[in-house]
């Protein structure tokens, strides 16, 4: 049953992705990206990746829509008409896609017990067995992220910080003074 | 106990599924935004509440977990509040931006999009100044 639900959700993802590519209206594309993250989070939940799903739910549905809309406000919500579809470009894209799909053939199957992540030096087994006594939290994802791989998470936090600084320096950091109080309706009707 | 749970849960679940599918069909088939909104909003909220009730039955009687039940109640409560608000805001924004409602034959029910904008205004005097075309 889970496999069936994941399959249906993933095919929804493909449909949405094609829709996003085809649509010229960028606002519609942003709205569809919201659906994309909804479906992705649903699929993650069914695949048991709860923390990933949580991140997708929190970021994809609300914040990323707002950031995309902010970006649209700076530009325009119509995509420029394409010049011409060049055949070599299409061939190149199809070839790259085929190569990528060929690459996935080597990957372990979903949920496979013999995938390298499970078998390599018994890391996963060790985390599952020992982390309760070594670190404590019942949620092993938390203990891996915050304790075993604390350096990584420190780096990620710094990346988020740096990204925030970068965007703010692009958008401008100027302070602004408070406005006089004019009701919006009055202003619109004046 | 099992039997009682089944007797309670199945009819509720079927009702919820009818709500959801009817709403989705209405959203695909109806002619304009306002009718689609009408189809989608009530059935979504109702379907969520009814299916949430089914899940609540299972949370209480099978899992016996108070935390799960509370979270389900919170989900149902938030949906009960946010979904109608979202529908309201959507309809108001559509009116304000001048989207004219149409009837079954595709004829506009208002003369111009300015009238729709006027209808969308929240001030009572502004909306009473407009009467419908027919």
């Amino acid at each position, binding site marked *: 049953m889970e496999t069936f639900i994941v399959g249906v959700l993933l095919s929804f993802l493909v449909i949405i992705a094609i829709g996003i590519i085809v649509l010229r209206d960028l606002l519609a594309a942003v709205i569809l990206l919201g659906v994309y993250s909804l479906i992705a989070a649903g699929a993650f939940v069914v695949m048991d990746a*709860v*923390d990933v799903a*949580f*991140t997708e739910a*929190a*970021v994809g549905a*609300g*914040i990323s829509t*707002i950031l995309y809309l902010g*970006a649209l*406000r*700076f*530009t*325009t919500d119509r995509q420029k008409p394409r010049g011409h579809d060049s055949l070599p470009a299409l061939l190149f894209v199809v070839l790259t896609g085929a190569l990528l799909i060929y690459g996935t053939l080597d990957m372990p199957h979903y949920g496979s017990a013999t995938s390298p992540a499970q078998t390599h030096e018994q890391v996963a087994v060790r985390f599952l067995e020992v982390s309760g*006594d*070594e*670190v*404590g*939290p*019942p*949620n092993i*994802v*938390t*203990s891996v992220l*915050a*304790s075993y791989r*604390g350096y990584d*998470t*420190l780096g990620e*936090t*710094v990346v*988020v*910080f740096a*990204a*925030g*600084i970068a*965007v*703010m320096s692009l*958008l401008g950091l100027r*302070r*602004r003074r408070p*406005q006089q109080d*004019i009701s*919006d309706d009055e*202003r*619109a009707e004046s | 106990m099992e039997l009682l749970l089944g007797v309670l849960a199945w009819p509720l679940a079927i009702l919820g599924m009818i709500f959801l599918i009817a709403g989705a069909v209405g959203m695909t088939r109806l002619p304009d935004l306002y009718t689609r909104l009408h189809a989608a909003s009530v059935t979504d909220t109702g379907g969520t509440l009814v299916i949430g009730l089914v899940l609540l039955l299972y949370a209480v009687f099978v899992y016996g977990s108070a935390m799960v039940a509370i979270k389900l109640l919170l989900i149902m409560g938030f949906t009960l*509040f*946010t979904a109608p*608000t979202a529908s*309201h*805001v959507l309809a*108001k924004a559509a009116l*304000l*931006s*001048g*989207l004219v409602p149409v009837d079954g034959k595709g004829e506009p029910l208002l003369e111009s*999009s300015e009238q729709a904008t006027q209808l*969308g*205004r*929240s001030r009572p005097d502004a909306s009473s100044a407009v009467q419908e075309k027919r």
Partner: protein
Amino acid sequence: MRRYPRQSHRVLQVMTRLLVPFMILFGLYVQFHGDYGPGGGFQAGVIIAAGLILYGLVFGIQRARSVCPPSWARVMMSLGVLIYAGTGAVTMLLGAHLLDYDVLAHDPLHGQHWGIFAVELGVGVTVTGVMISLFYGFSSARNSIDRKNSGLPSDVEASSTVEHPQ
């Protein structure tokens, strides 16, 4: 379809007033319950920021700014990283490796608990600050393209903007 001057949404305002406290409360729950359930600092930060962003969208940026001034958001951005790195520095001062929380309390398990708590708090504070700052940055940056594309007659445009003294 065209854009329209701002209208106040009474229903939306009432709902937002109801919803925002719950969002922030839920964010705090995710922050401090991440040891036991799904979630952690990142998700919590995003949810708390989402609460404030909803407030700002509905009641206007000016009010959101008075709730959480941009300078606070900027301080939060760096404060979180400081908390995280500071935890590492404290563990080093106590004689262990960087981010080895065992030494933070009398026994290793408690030390780990405190360490994870502090680190997640740092992540949460940074992410909240960054998200709020991004929202402020995007919403307050003025641009001329938007007004050109809005499709409204020019007099409405002119009246819907206030020239603001620099």
